[in-house]
């Protein structure tokens, strides 16, 4: 086991309801947090749709991750980010989102991925 905490980035790029990747990402992220690793969750591309408020996935028998996101801080997941250009490309603004999420510019995201020990892509 490494003595230092590993920096693990979870990159969520696919839209909700087309697959269950985001649920898997969240399960794995919480496991990593339970292992006391330094985790970041980043939404980019169609993954930003997970952050829209007022989603009712249960109407089509699917769970979405929206309900779990606001409690991530309790698990010491401090860094939840959304790629600014992905939001802009979909004509979305921060006030359409279900919680305050920090914007990250694409070059800064590239640095975050570069500096990470591991990146899980979902």
């Amino acid at each position, binding site marked *: *086991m*490494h003595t230092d905490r*590993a920096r*693990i980035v979870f990159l969520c790029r696919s839209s909700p309801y087309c697959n*269950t*990747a985001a649920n*898997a990402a969240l*399960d*794995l992220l919480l*496991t*990593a947090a*339970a*292992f006391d*690793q330094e985790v970041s969750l980043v939404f980019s591309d169609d993954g930003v749709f997970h952050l829209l408020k007022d989603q009712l996935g249960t109407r089509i028998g699917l769970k979405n991750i929206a309900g779990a996101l606001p409690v991530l801080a309790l698990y010491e997941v401090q860094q939840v980010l959304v790629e600014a250009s992905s939001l802009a490309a979909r004509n979305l603004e921060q006030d359409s989102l279900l919680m305050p999420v920090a914007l990250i510019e694409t070059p800064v995201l590239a640095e975050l991925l570069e500096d990470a*020990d*591991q990146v*899980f*892509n*979902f």
Partner: protein
Amino acid sequence: MKFSLVVYSAPYSTQASSTALHFAKAALAGGHDIYRIFFFQDGVLNATALAVPPQDEVDIPQAWQELTRQHGIDSVVCVASALKRGILDDDEANRYDKKHSSMASEFSLGGLGQLIDASLHSDRLLCFGA
């Protein structure tokens, strides 16, 4: 170098599982180590013991079994992903009162902790099909 692989895709549905298999063979042939192969989400279907592909097609599940056996690889199947897709070992089949098990004996069921463990203990973690 010490690698771990994560396989997210079912055999035959996409190329990812097959590519992961080729990578694993190439890495081992090149003198590298594989710390663990983790089958996650639809990837758990690679662990089926019941696939019967046509004779003129590659038997991908069997290729994973042979690779695991020949090299003593720690091939772990995510238990939560597996159970809901009908991949059960004998213990789980008994536990849930199912008539049959379906997972090849080369694999073991495990939790996500083993994937995080793999990411911490490998020089490189490669994801196939994500």
